[in-house]
């Protein structure tokens, strides 16, 4: 750690991990309900669990990204953060929004639009919160000694993510338009600007962990984010095939979303090649595991599994089935959760001064959580394909089919238990590191 203000990152990471635990708990509630055990229905009906599960995902990832930015930007800009106090104010307001929204979901207070369930009054608080965050990051960057490509790409991703929240706040009378612009937020986040954030964090980690020249890494960063936008922006069309808009999206969405895996393939090749080129001297191997893991698993989860159902000819049958849940789980895990785990694993020793990165626990956490998540993805995939065949082709009744696939949710719960065990092991390490200290400033990274 080079600057005192970087310590702020720790508290964003801690908040992020707390929400992740809650997200997993609600995931289990949903898994059991799908398997036929919905004993909590009267307190936490499925739609509440679903809204909580999705929104906690968004908030914990954003909190992780914000923590990453508070750590990376001062180091890249070579100066302290402009205001540490305001950064804590921002964290507290983020926590207030999250807690208020989650409690509200249990009392039927929400907007009822998938991923954007946070009710309108709280949306305004989100806007204020994000404006404050962006101001702190951009002013620090602007006043800094240098403006690196890594910092610019990361900030650009965060800024666009903030701007893209706005189309989700407009009310439309037509469900078609509502859905159309909801994807401007959700798709352009996860298959667009969030990839910039991921790319920025990945590039920072590769520079630090591999020792490869910054110029080389940042050049490829441009190529990757270029490929991301080239395919991802028009790839939004894959959400427009069957929601009641023009057929032109079948062609445009089909072609460009089929190109989307290229960006993830480039990211995976880039990370692996930089690792090969590098000196392999950095002692923090567990951070390297998560970094390379994120690049590779995101290619499989977001790239390949996305491609599996993105063509209109396939999607007409899979649209609105568990096949989507299959892709979503491995994609979010690989691309975003793992990159947050990577930056946490890299920064914790630097912020706390404790070098616990050789622990076996850390490696078991990595493998268990990944194996568990891959198992969950397979369970969702099998359930999804069976659902498509029985319901969409054989025209069987929805609930009859759901009964048939209950068994796959038992498999899902078993795999989720492996996954959750991995996460718990990661958190034990997180807690063992303790809180950040100024003494860590003097320690060589």
């Amino acid at each position, binding site marked *: 750690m080079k600057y005192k203000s970087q310590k702020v990152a720790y508290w964003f990471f801690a908040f992020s991990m707390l929400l992740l635990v809650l997200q997993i708990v609600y995931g289990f509630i*949903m898994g059991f*309900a*799908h398997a*036929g055990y919905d004993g909590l229905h009267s307190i936490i*009906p*499925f*739609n509440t669990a*679903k*809204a909580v599960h999705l929104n906690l995902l968004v908030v914990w990832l954003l909190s992780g990204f914000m923590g990453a930015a508070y750590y990376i930007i001062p180091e890249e800009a070579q100066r302290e953060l402009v205001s540490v106090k305001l950064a804590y104010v921002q964290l507290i307001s983020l926590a207030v929004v999250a807690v208020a929204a989650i409690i509200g*979901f249990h009392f*039927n207070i*929400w*907007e*009822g*639009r*998938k991923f954007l*369930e946070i009710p309108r009054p709280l949306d305004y608080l989100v806007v204020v919160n994000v404006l404050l965050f962006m101001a702190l990051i951009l002013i620090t960057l602007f006043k800094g000694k240098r403006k690196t*490509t890594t910092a610019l790409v990361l900030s650009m991703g965060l800024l666009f993510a903030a701007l893209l929240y706005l189309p989700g706040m407009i009310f439309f*009378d*037509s*469900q*078609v*338009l*509502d859905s*159309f612009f909801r994807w401007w937020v959700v798709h352009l986040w996860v298959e667009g600007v969030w990839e910039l954030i991921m790319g920025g964090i990945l590039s920072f980690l590769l520079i630090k962990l591999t020792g490869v020249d910054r*110029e080389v890494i*940042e*050049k*490829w960063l*441009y*190529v990757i*984010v*270029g*490929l991301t*936008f*080239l395919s991802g*922006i*028009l790839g939004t*069309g894959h959400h*427009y*095939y*069957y929601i*009641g*808009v*023009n057929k*032109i*999206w*079948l062609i445009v969405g089909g072609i460009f979303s089929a190109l989307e895996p290229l960006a993830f393939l480039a990211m995976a090749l880039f990370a692996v090649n930089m690792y090969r080129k590098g000196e392999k001297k950095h002692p923090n191997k567990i951070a390297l595991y998560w970094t390379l893991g994120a690049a590779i698993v995101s290619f499989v989860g977001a790239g390949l599994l996305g491609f599996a159902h993105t063509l209109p000819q396939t999607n*007409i*049958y899979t*649209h*609105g*089935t*568990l096949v989507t849940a299959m892709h979503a789980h491995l994609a979010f895990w690989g691309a975003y959760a793992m990159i947050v785990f990577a930056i946490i694993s890299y920064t914790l020793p630097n912020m706390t001064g404790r070098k616990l990165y050789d622990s076996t626990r850390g490696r078991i956490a990595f493998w268990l959580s990944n194996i568990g998540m891959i198992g969950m993805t397979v369970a969702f995939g099998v359930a999804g394909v069976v659902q498509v065949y029985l319901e*969409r082709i054989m025209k069987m009744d*929805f*609930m*009859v089919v*759901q*009964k048939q696939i209950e068994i796959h949710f038992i498999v899902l719960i078993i795999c989720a238990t492996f996954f959750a065990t991995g996460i718990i092991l990661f958190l034990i390490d997180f807690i063992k590191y303790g809180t950040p200290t100024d003494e860590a400033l003097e320690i060589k990274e």
Partner: protein
Amino acid sequence: MLSKKQARAFFLGGTLVTFLIFIGLTIYSLSPAQDQSHSENITASVIKGKKIWEKNNCMGCHTLLGEGGYYAPELTKVVDRLNQRYDGNGEAAIKSILMSKGPWQPHGRKMVAYGMTDAEASDVVAFFKWIGKIDLNGFGTVVSPLAKGKIKN
């Protein structure tokens, strides 16, 4: 070999071009001439139905236009589907589910008992009827209970 400057030009140029095409296509596909949703049929009752749909986060379990929770049935063609099942009494069946004070649990999977008023339930039905008529580029036949080809979206 590619320079950093060229890489940046690729990023900025590619982004700008695809973004402009995206905006162009959005304007084209949302223009009145391309409307596939019969937006002229969005009555006050349909809008009220949509608001009730959102207020109760129905999408948290059901899917509509293929989007939602994957836990409860797709409702895009729900009026057709229940008409077929209940000999043309689909609307009444939907209303009785929405107005029920006790939990509705087909095959054991529970739905929250909303206990809506007759007017509210009618608005939701109006919303579903409007949704059911949208031209969905072929998806309508996939989620419809009627044999493929027999109905026009």
